[in-house]
């Protein structure tokens, strides 16, 4: 059992890749915002990389253990401590019954920290996943963020291995100025946006709005040129189209405002999407600080984006770990 002493700002149970295959029912996949740190944490404690763990956002959470486990914390530095003693990120530790794991406030760049516990968080599987999907109030612990007093069941611990770490050269580096690989489409130029619009999109240093969360990342307002004068039958504004499905990670432009549709986002709607964040770059979104961080989009094609995914999958393997 994992007892929640404090849920902090927003702590949820997630698994990877979340609820895949339900887009046609209106359900985005959920899952961790930073799937790289999340999967690494699981790997460190001997879990399947996709096993259910915790996503701690913006800091401040505390957990107590009721039996012996192996834990790892990966992602943003929230000054994690076991029984008050500082521990390193990207490294597995043993905890005993009665021990506490505390995550404090953010220290340096990054915004989300991931806690993996050997055996995984054993909340019920809902529609194929344990991931918390707040818009539908399903998955995770009662479909919501964790609160003080919640008791999380844990799975059977298998080949848990404390005392391992991610090789220091392979630990991802965080920044406040991100470069995010993205692929054009489906309503980019030439028929919805102009070439100049897309050049601006791929060169501007966008600021992430403070009203950004798991459903969407809002970027700066921009006066687009638009290739069409109106949205025709779909509405007065050229950003309007007849409703269509939205890709996960799409940069959706509603009027003047681009919004990246993150893992809890809407599945379908009537606004254009000028680009889509490459699957292998989605993790970076999870570490951006709303209201402060800047991001530029770097254009890649489908083949280059597929290559990114393969590189990432290679990274998430035993070869990336070492004994301490």
């Amino acid at each position, binding site marked *: 059992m994992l007892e929640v002493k404090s849920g902090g700002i927003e702590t949820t149970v997630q698994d990877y890749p979340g609820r*895949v*295959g*339900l*887009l*046609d*029912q*209106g*359900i985005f996949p959920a899952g961790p915002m930073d799937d790289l740190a999340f999967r690494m944490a699981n790997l460190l404690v001997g879990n399947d990389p996709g096993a259910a763990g915790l996503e701690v956002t913006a800091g401040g959470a505390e957990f107590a253990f009721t039996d012996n486990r192996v834990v790892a914390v990966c992602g943003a530095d929230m000054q994690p401590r076991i029984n008050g003693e500082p521990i390193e990120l990207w490294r597995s530790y043993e905890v005993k019954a009665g021990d506490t794991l505390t995550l404090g406030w953010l220290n340096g760049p990054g915004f989300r920290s991931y806690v993996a516990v050997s055996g995984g968080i054993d909340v019920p599987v*809902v*529609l194929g996943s344990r991931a918390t*999907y707040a*818009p*539908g*109030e*399903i998955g995770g612990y009662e*479909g919501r963020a964790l609160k003080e007093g919640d008791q999380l069941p844990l799975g059977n611990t298998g080949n848990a291995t404390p005392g391992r770490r991610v090789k220091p050269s392979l630990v991802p580096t965080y920044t406040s100025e991100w470069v995010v690989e*993205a*692929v*054009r*489409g*489906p*309503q*980019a*130029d*030439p*028929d919805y946006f102009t070439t100049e619009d897309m050049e601006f999109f791929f060169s501007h240093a966008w600021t992430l709005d403070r009203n950004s969360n798991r459903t969407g990342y809002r970027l700066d307002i921009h006066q687009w040129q638009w290739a069409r004068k109106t949205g*025709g*039958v*779909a*509405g007065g504004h050229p950003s309007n*189209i*007849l*409703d*269509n*499905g*939205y*890709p*996960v*990670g*799409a940069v959706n432009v509603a009027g003047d405002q681009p919004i990246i549709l993150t893992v809890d986002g*809407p*599945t*379908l*709607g009537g606004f254009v*999407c000028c*680009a*889509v*964040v*490459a*699957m292998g770059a989605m993790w970076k979104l999870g570490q951006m600080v709303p209201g402060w961080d800047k991001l530029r989009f770097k254009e*890649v094609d*489908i083949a280059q*984006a*597929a290559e990114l*995914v*393969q590189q990432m999958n290679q990274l998430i393997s035993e070869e990336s770990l070492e004994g301490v």
Partner: protein
Amino acid sequence: MAQHDGQTSGVILATVPAREGRPKIVYRQAGDRFMLVEFGDMEFDLTMSFRVLGLNQALKDHGLDGLIETVPAIRSILIHYDSTRLKPDRLIQAVEDLYEQLPPFETLTIPSRRISLPIAFNDRWTRADIARYVEHIRKDAPNIINGNNLEYGAMYNGLRDAEELMEYVMATEWWSAAIGFFPGLPFLYPLDRRYAIVLPKYNPTRPWTPEGAVGIAGPCLAIYPVASAGGYQLFGRTIPIYDPKQRNAAFAENPILLRPGDRVTFGPRVSDEELIEIREAVYNGTYEYQIDHDATFDVGEYLRFLEETREEAEAFRRRQEEAAQRTPVP
């Protein structure tokens, strides 16, 4: 090989021009793991939805390696695929092959359940959220008359009064062309064009909408699966279409009630008190949802029905346009 006409620029991966029996199809790159397949032009044509759902079913049945899922909408299918295993060209070819093998459009029969949902018009819950909107968001919203959107809806569509608007909502079957935005939210379109109400959206949007609220914007009717923000003009409330706690047999297999291709009708008409009782019965498991699981939709028959009712539908459309011109928009 598909006959691409060479119009491949930017995100358009292939364009297959219209020819006898099939509309133009455009294949658009939608990132590194999605592709958007668009039928015809950007115009509202409900019959495109039948082609979409026909092809969508074929794609699901075929089980192409690397294809993850499909998202049908009114004139498009968004395909989710694994680009490390399935190259875009191969995917386009596979879709074209499947489309060519579909039976002629006029002979399509689509599995289409019939579902009827009780409705309380101008109910106290939607009125309460509309009152909050007037108090906190916009005092002079022209789409709110006497604390509801029904009277405005009647005015905008050239109907006699709110009562006639309610009759129109109940008179047609509503075609579920897509499910999305929120979990289980249906995008429903009127199959009988003689009763096809059209309305503009809220401006600005409304921060609150009750779960189960029924609203219209453009030609589309939506039922709100969860309490949420929204922009549709509200006119009533129905029973749950989404239950994450799965408290009724209708939700036993899936917390989401409706699917693309379903046909929904509203009725019987109930009071607020009756709706409360029915909703309680839904949650304690004693209410039985009215669903005909085995119904099918005959496209040819429907096309003949459209032809038979064309003149009346046109007359209503003209009446609506005149009314809309003299009605303020939000």
